[in-house]
């Protein structure tokens, strides 16, 4: 057990370093001088050189990377160019808000997806099966930012039931529309994989044996559910992590003050430290989630360890 966990962590380290390299490169990928946003129009070459040195931009890139990485590891992600605030202080509340939304959405997606997929896979009712399969494909093809707009049109504009934007100071009603919007695609994907997995498990001999020895249907369902769990968990973990990226668009539609909102603002003000910091934090959460899913999967299904 422990050996596997350590092995996984060691495998993740180079990826984490690679991710940090990409994030570091982002700023240098940007056209123009990274300082152009803060330098006054008529700055003399001497002042430019001084500021460059102050930001460490006069050193060779590998040195800059090492210095930057050292700072990142101590939690120093630099300062926002617009507000002058430390990047981390701006990011933390935004990440919190995004996580709240993503957590609510994954719960909804899990509930909807496993019920739909489970029923379709279990009953193998042709009509229901068809409905679930096509709903799943529809869910995957939907541009979720548009779903958000349609929901706003329906429930905010036409019916006037729910607020359309912002967090409303923690009012739960403000969460309903963005949560549904964010849950649509993962629900489709989860339903699809639950269905496939239930069908697969029910074909296996041990299920036949359980029925043959006279176990009642509800107890057999428990056995099936236990075997479907690892697959569903893996899909859920990945979807949860993908949501952190996908929420950029949904948060923009609903003016939800999360990371997406922050990123959007950073892109338009060319606030590269915020852009870089947010992407680094989100990507690291994604990497950590993948690791967590792998390890959790091993606890649920010890067979994983051997492969």
């Amino acid at each position, binding site marked *: 057990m422990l050996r596997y966990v350590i092995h996984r962590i060691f495998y993740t380290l180079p990826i984490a370093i690679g991710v940090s390299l990409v994030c570091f490169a*982002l700023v240098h990928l940007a056209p123009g001088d990274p300082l152009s946003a803060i330098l006054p129009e008529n700055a003399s070459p001497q002042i430019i050189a001084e500021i460059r040195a102050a930001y460490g931009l006069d050193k060779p890139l590998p040195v800059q990377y090492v210095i930057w990485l050292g700072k990142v590891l101590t939690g120093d992600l630099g300062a926002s160019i617009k507000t002058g605030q430390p990047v981390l202080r701006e990011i933390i509340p935004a990440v919190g808000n995004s996580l709240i939304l993503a957590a609510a959405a994954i719960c909804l997606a899990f509930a909807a997806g496993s019920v739909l997929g489970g029923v379709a896979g279990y009953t193998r009712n042709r009509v229901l099966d068809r409905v679930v399969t096509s709903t799943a*494909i529809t869910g995957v*093809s939907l*541009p979720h*930012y548009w779903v958000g707009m349609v929901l706003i*049109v329906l429930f905010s504009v036409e019916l006037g039931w729910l607020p359309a934007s912002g967090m409303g100071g923690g009012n739960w009603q403000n969460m309903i529309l963005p949560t549904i919007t964010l849950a649509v695609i993962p629900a489709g994907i989860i339903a699809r994989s639950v269905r496939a997995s239930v069908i697969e498990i029910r074909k296996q001999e041990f299920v036949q044996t359980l029925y043959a020895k006279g176990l009642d249907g509800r107890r057999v369902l428990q056995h099936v559910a236990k075997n479907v769990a690892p697959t569903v968990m893996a899909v859920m973990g990945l979807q949860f992590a*993908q949501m952190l990226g996908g929420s*950029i668009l949904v948060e923009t539609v609903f003016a939800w003050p999360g990371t997406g909102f922050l990123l959007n603002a950073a892109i338009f003000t060319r606030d590269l430290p915020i852009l870089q910091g947010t992407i680094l934090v989100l990507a690291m959460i*994604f990497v950590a989630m993948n690791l967590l899913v792998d390890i959790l999967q091993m606890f649920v299904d010890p067979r994983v360890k051997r492969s």
Partner: protein
Amino acid sequence: MSSTPTSLPTPAPLIAAAFRRPSRGFWHTVGTRLRRDPVTLTCAGILLVIITAALAAPWLGLDDPFKMSMVRRLKPFGYQGHILGTDELGRDMLSRLIYGGRLSLFMGFMPVILATLIGGVLGIVAGYVGGRWNMIIMRLIDVFYAFPSVLLAVAISGALGAGLLNSIVSLTLVFIPPIARIAESVTTQVRGQDFVEAARATGASTWRIIRGHVFSNVIGPILVYASSLISVSIVIASGLSFLGLGVSPPNAEWGLMLNTLRQAIYVSPLIAILPGVMIFVTSMCFNLMSDGLRSAMDIKA
């Protein structure tokens, strides 16, 4: 043994086989199956209409998609010959939706084509050469895989700045890793097969083996996967435009139209959601077609 002469196959069946109608090839079977699939056919029909309309837009006798009018802003469906109404700057919606297909479809296809070429080559090289090169290429790809796809697209576009070209670059980078992975795993499997060994033993060059054996095995799975990416590409590309990272106004593009019409959602909600309908229908048709192709080619998801 004395049975040696009898153990040789009698030539008659072989000759008969040579004169039999040539057996139907793999692609022929796939084509036949696709032609019998009503869902795939319907989707293909819808897409054909959308694509043809987009390509032939200038000759369809539509209104000028850029002609603004302050007095005709956000008019409802059917207003003075504007079948689908007008947008927030008084431009004809129908015309803009059809013209918008040009950029949206281009942004759906281009990154997938580029990523298939680049990712395919990377994967085949990694899989065929193996060893250290495989390590380097695949670990590099793992790093890009470690980003959520939309986040990576937004990050690269955000750093490079808005623009059509930058959107295509960022989407291509997002799609290369999965394609390279598929190409790599198929190539690695094929490389270990006996028929490759046999080909090498008969003196076939590396290029010939790749062209004849590897390529023909890799092309199927990659094609199926790439076809499913077109719908993703359309949705994410429109998403980038929706964020203001794609093409710039006054260009007609579905995501951008959705973005600029968002302000009008309280005034004329029906018109504001129209571009999204186009994105959704196009993306779903591509998805269903890809599904049809997958089952016609009998490749498991």
